[in-house]
């Protein structure tokens, strides 16, 4: 059996795994050698250890990459679970359809998008990814195949959505796409000087725009605390002439020997980024790729963080305490001076997510990258954990490789109900970590 070194997007954890593969949706669940466990592995875009199973096996699903049906009249698409969102968009956009929810990268598999119940910049309108999943097939290690939807096997549906691959492997999926008239978006950007302004702007923007997201200068302190830019967008109404979407991409060819993300580069980047937006408000028209997936234009951008890798910290805090908690989080990060290029701030809507372990819930979510500087960054995370925990918030498993088990369990009160649906053959590094000492 092949033993391969596998890592996730953050590159903090690299470890050899036994690797199995599914090559088509009719393949049976692999027979595991010995008493080890296995975890489905899509395109490895989770940041931490939720897609790894150190000491055990992974079941690769990228080869499950076939379309099954696409109804160009109704926008219903069925495909195997290893199909990338990028592949779906390449097929659907020229036909006038779009994914109803997209995360910040299109290089995730559709199975992974369900297993992490991903969200996008339109959460306040569209909810999470799973809301648009009509059904999927779940293959369990005993060979059972379950058709899951909100009406068929609804408990298995709710456990598998956001279930981090622990309930079995998703083999194929049926999605409802949404119509669009154009591959472009009408984008409006507006500066805000602090968090109070951010919340006011959001309020208005969410009424007028399907997509809203804010970039925050995480080095700003005092009066500049929480300054940033709010980007809002709608799909363009005018039919655009068909154009090739082969936008030029750049790749980072090998890991940088040291992290190129440091105090100096950050300060320059953040100041430039903030001041590039010279006017208060700016309207532009952007291609969907540029708007939704700006980082995808630099393939393997994670290598910029060097061999030690990086962490992403993404939390959500409830709406009632969002203002205080967010400003406390930002102040703590600014004091540490460890922040990163991308601090993203977004208000989640009131829509309740379909999964027992779904991350999105009404409130405000903040996400930032941190170069792996060992103990210093872990100390900062502990202060942030304290703020999030006190606020009654939660961290996002897809981004995590270090949250304390207690914080997971308080943030995901349905974890006990969920654990009844875990496949006896499945486990992950993440799950064992947050279940330690339970």
């Amino acid at each position, binding site marked *: 059996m092949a033993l391969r070194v596998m890592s996730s997007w953050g590159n903090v954890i690299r470890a050899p795994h036994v690797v199995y593969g599914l*090559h088509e949706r*009719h393949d049976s669940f692999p027979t595991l050698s010995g008493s080890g466990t296995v975890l489905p592995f899509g395109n490895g875009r989770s940041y931490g250890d939720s897609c790894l199973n150190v000491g055990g096996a992974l079941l690769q699903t990228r080869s499950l990459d076939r379309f099954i049906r696409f109804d160009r009249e109704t926008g219903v698409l069925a495909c195997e679970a290893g199909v990338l969102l990028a592949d779906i968009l390449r*097929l659907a956009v020229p036909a006038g359809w779009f994914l109803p929810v997209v995360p910040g990268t299109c290089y995730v598999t559709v199975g992974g998008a369900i297993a992490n119940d991903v969200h996008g910049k339109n959460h306040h309108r569209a909810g999470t990814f799973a809301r648009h999943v009509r059904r999927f097939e779940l293959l369990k290690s005993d060979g059972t195949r379950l058709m899951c939807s909100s009406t068929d096997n609804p408990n298995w549906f709710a456990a598998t959505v956001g279930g981090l691959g622990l309930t079995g492997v998703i083999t194929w999926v049926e999605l409802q796409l949404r119509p669009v008239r154009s591959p472009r978006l009408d984008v409006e950007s507006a500066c805000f000087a602090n968090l109070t302004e951010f919340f006011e702007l959001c309020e208005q923007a969410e009424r007028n725009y399907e997509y809203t997201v804010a970039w925050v200068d995480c080095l700003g302190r005092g009066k500049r605390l929480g300054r940033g830019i709010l980007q809002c967008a709608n799909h363009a109404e005018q039919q655009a002439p068909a154009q090739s979407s082969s936008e030029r991409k750049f790749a980072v060819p090998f890991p940088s020997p040291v992290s190129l993300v440091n105090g100096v580069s950050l300060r320059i980047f953040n100041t430039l980024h903030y001041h590039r937006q010279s006017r208060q408000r700016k309207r532009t028209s952007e291609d969907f790729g540029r708007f939704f997936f700006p980082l995808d234009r630099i393939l393997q951008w994670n290598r910029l963080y060097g061999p030690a890798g990086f962490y992403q910290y993404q939390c959500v805090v409830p709406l009632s305490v969002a203002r205080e908690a967010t400003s406390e989080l930002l102040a703590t990060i600014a004091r540490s001076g460890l922040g990163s290029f991308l601090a993203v701030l977004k208000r989640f809507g009131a829509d309740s997510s379909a999964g027992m372990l779904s991350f999105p819930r009404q409130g405000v979510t903040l996400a930032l990258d941190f170069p792996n500087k060992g103990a210093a960054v872990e100390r900062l995370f502990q202060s942030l954990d304290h703020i999030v925990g006190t606020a009654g918030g939660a961290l996002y498993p897809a981004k995590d490789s270090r949250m304390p088990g207690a914080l997971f369990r308080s943030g995901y009160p349905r974890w006990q109900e969920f654990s009844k649906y875990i496949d006896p053959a499945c486990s992950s590094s993440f799950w064992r970590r947050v279940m330690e000492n339970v």
Partner: protein
Amino acid sequence: MRRVLIIGATSAIAEATARMLAERGDALYLVARNEPRLGAIAADLAVRGSPRVGSEVLDANDFAAHEQMLARAETFLSGYDTVLVAHGTLSDQKACEGSVELTMREINTNALSVIAMLTRIANRLEARQSGTIAVISSVAGDRGRGSNYVYGSAKALVTAFLSGLRQRLGKCGVNVLTIKPGFVDTPMTAAFEKGLLWARPERIAQGIVRALDRQSGTIYLPGFWRPIMLVIRAIPESLFLRLSL
């Protein structure tokens, strides 16, 4: 629009090639052994844009069934103008050394069934005075190596056959393309540790489609295998004996 017959359509290289052809709007007739997989691939290619996709199950070693399959493909596509022969198995060299039966079966699948198929296809296209025959051979056919000579010799037979066929059919406007991939990361090679020389099937497929359009003769995929194999072929036998390749 091409009208393409693909034998061994479930192989990773053939599937990746078929996707590119489907996206360009080519009509396809797919032949392979594994029925559920064949059905899944046919449906996928239709979604990706092929206006017409047919398929049939065939064991290439059943030579007697070739003629009828070719006739059905001919009817379905209203005459095919391009054929891609991509079926094969990667022989277990060690197991072959201990078994005449297994060795003969590998030679049968990787060489004789291809030659049986090509003999019939060549005559059809020759009569029509146009078309392209593309066959997946291998760098392994360029020189027999101790680690892989059963597979290699089968591919050598295919390569030599194609070379002659190209000379014969070139005179009447039929192009014969010999495709020699190096190490390709496919289910067939899942058990191997992958290094720098390995390529994804999508990359091989791009090379195949480009070669179809340019009417090339022999291609190595990726191209760096051409100089590598030039060197390997040039090594004197006395030195070659002492290497383990």
